[in-house]
């Protein structure tokens, strides 16, 4: 295995008295698609949030390209999320008041890109993900599948090295779910982006190069390369 892009070592994290992670460790290689599986409450979403720098573990290390992510300030982690990471969540990740194109352009605008440039790139991604026709619509005016494809476009627009996807098809029917996964994985593979995928659906997990099963906050099984 090549040098990992993202590493987690012996992560522990508790919410009050309940431990969510209890010594979880995992590596993600560049361009790899990793699926985190496990029953409800096994800590897969928590692990994803720690890897993405959204949550900071109580103990353990999270490394990204040699940087200790868990030691970075909130501002620097925000900057990383803007430049190097992309996110697709089950729902609620689009800003409801903005149109699809504005939502996709948002990471670029926050990074200081001009509106015209940002929206042109956003439009390209919307076309690529086959939702160009909803570019001027707001989140509430789109179907669930369209909304998720817009979210995928937003996750990929800034050319991230890693996309974190937490149950990206959880709110979709199987057909739309497949379409979203095809587009997400296809685009990621094309630009060498890694994907860390949380799912409990075997069909979705099948898109991954490697599957990691969590139980009680720790890795129980690894399947794949």
């Amino acid at each position, binding site marked *: 295995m090549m040098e990992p892009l993202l590493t987690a070592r012996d992560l522990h994290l508790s919410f009050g008295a309940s431990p969510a992670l209890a010594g979880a460790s995992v590596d993600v290689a560049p361009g790899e698609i990793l699926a985190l599986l496990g029953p409800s409450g096994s800590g897969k979403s928590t692990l994803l949030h720690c890897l993405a720098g959204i949550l900071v573990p109580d103990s353990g290390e999270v490394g990204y390209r040699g940087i200790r992510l868990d030691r970075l300030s909130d501002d620097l982690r925000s900057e990383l999320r803007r430049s190097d990471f992309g996110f697709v969540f089950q729902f609620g990740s689009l800003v409801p008041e*903005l149109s699809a194109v504005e939502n996709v352009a948002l990471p670029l605008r*926050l990074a200081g890109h001009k509106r015209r440039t940002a929206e042109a790139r956003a439009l390209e991604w919307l076309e690529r993900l086959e939702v160009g026709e909803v570019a001027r619509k707001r989140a509430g005016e789109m179907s669930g599948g369209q909304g998720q494809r817009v979210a995928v476009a937003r996750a990929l627009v800034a050319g991230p090295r890693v996309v974190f996807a937490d149950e990206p098809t959880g709110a979709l029917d199987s057909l739309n779910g497949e379409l979203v996964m095809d587009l997400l994985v296809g685009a990621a593979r094309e630009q060498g982006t890694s994907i860390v995928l949380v799912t409990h659906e075997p069909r979705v997990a099948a898109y991954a190069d490697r599957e990691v099963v969590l139980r009680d906050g720790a890795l129980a099984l690894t399947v794949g390369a």
Partner: protein
Amino acid sequence: MTPWLLGARLALTANRMRLVATTIAVSFTVAFLLAAMGALPSRQAKLDRLDARNVVQVDSQVATGMTAPAAVVRLESQVGTYRGRPLTVRFVSAEPGGPLPPGLTRYPRAGEVIASPDLADVLRGHRAGELATRVPGHLVGTVAEPGLAGPHELYAYVGVAGFDHETPQVQSYGSHYVRQPAPRELRIAAWLGALGLLLPVLVLVATATRLSASSRDRRLAALRLVGATPKQASAIAGAEGLVSGILGTAGGLVAFWLLRGPACALLPFPEGVYAQDLMPPLTMLLAVLVGVPLLAAVSGVLALRRVVTSPLGVRRTARVKTAAWWRLAPLLSGLAMLIVLRVNHTAWPLGTPPGTTLLLLGGGLTLVGVAVAAPVLSQLGGRLLGRLPGLSASLAARRIDADPTASARVVTGMVLVLFVSAWLLAFLPVLESSRDSGEKELLSYVSAGTVITASDVRKRPDLAAVQRVPGVRAVAVLGYAALTPPGWVSDDGSDPARTSHTVDVGSCTALARATRRHLPCGQGTVFRVSVSGAPDTASGSPLAEGERVGVLDSQGVVAAHLVLPARIPELPIPAYSGLLQGELLVDPALLPAAPSRLVVTTDGRADTVENVRAVLPLDLAMSAQTVAERVKAGASVYLGYRRAVKIGIVLALLVGAASLAVTTADAVAERRRSLATLVALGTPLRVLRRTVLLQTAAPMLSNVVVTLAAAAMASACYLGVTTSVPTGVPLPWGSWALTALAAVVAVLLATAATLPLVSAVGRPEALRAE
């Protein structure tokens, strides 16, 4: 895109309802602030207008060293009443080129009248005849706005052929008097009133900014997820506040501009206030225009102070916990300070550092304490509610107990309105008692429609003509004379203990007819009027029975003598009551005197009164005033403030109720899932509706009781320590009870207005949402 621009964009395109509510709330705040700040300057503007037309007489102290104008202008002012409104007429004889007062481009020639717009309307109308004596001549123009004290003033310049040299000559207009600050009571009342109005509006602003908090939280979380830093999130929230602040300030400015005309009608000035006079000072105006949007931006940022905005959502850092009893400490401390001040007010009067500190700190702490104590009082209300039977009471009590601060937030606006209103209502009797109560005494002797003229007559009235006026019931003529006891010497060597005594000259029977009272007229020809109010201290010892006294003529020389009867019966009408002015009432058969005052008993109708004035000579007509008019004139400022206070309280209650309705509706909408769950479990909607109602009513009632008690104690202490307040000013329990009732009813109605929403959101289908 800078975060500020994004925030502005989101403010404009996100929840429109929230934007509109916040804008309206801020608009209210700005409009109220500007009106409150403009109220006291409007009084000053009126004084300035009056001063601008004040006559500076040639050779007066102000005109010292000035050369008299070549063109002679002589002017005499007469002040009277027309249909209950003050009437000012300036008779003027002017040579061309003389100094002009503001509002005139030329003086009226003899026989011409230049009148204010309101008076001009009367002179052009069918009632012009009523003013024929007082405003003689034909109307040739109107006095322009700079020459008037207010838009509804009855004011005129009447040209006359010529005045004698004793009539003052005009040097110029505008005496540039030394400005006096408004009386303390007035300033306190004005600021209390402004605070009373402002508090619920500020609560409305706070409420509006909390609207749709969950959607704002989701929005901020989504932005954080795509990489917005905490600072950028704060800037976005600040920009949202700034946009509402700018829109609200603009709206408030427009509302103030458009509504200040009608708002002027609320100010207690009979002649009205020009809209342009209701204007805050420029510095205050700028402070509001810049400060309010900035404050709105800061409040947007501060709203995030107690939350952690993470990509996964917004977390409250403060735990919901039961309200601690320490919350009563500020209220109790404030009241304790006021009680200490009340007990020691002779040692620490207001104006001394301890007195002023205790008053300000005690009053401020009590006001803040009412708001701070609201959660603990709400919790108490909730616990009492929990003892009642029924599912609604239990659900409401649980809900209050789970988050008493949230329950208190709903009613705090109304509670503050109630506290300030209660204090303001307690203050009204102070304003009332600080005015002269002579008119009240007069009203106990004569009917309100009785016309009384003043005591300076140049031309004898035609009494028969007065008697013929329909509606006139009786006429009594009074004169007065100055009597001197024996041993009185003239001015250069007068004995201060033996100066002259004023007596009224008039027929007791005529007075009895006019006052419709039984007087002991058959018992003599000279009566001693009982002393009431402030007696003339210069008059020394009273005139004695059987004494031989001198009668002074107009030059102050003893012209005749009069022997007072051996027995002088008492007349049960006091001197200084406004009806009699002297020590004795002497029959005209005993002491001839020129008639100087008329007491005309009428049916009180305005037509009758004006017809009486119309048949009187000018001087008497101008001075003629009914008792009702005297009372009204004396109380006009007080009545105006009372009306303004009442309107203010109603407005504040309405704003408070609106704020409460918005909060309740938003709370219901935010809890749609839990309501839907209860419905899905089989809870009837009527139970949920009753729960929502009880959830507001219980905290409101517990807060109202404590607030009223606190306001009563604070008011009683304050009234007790203010030296300008006469002893025995009653606390307005009736008004307080009425205001509290109105507040409770407003709260219940506002909550009831949101109940249809419970039915709308409480459908089990809501469980499928999100």
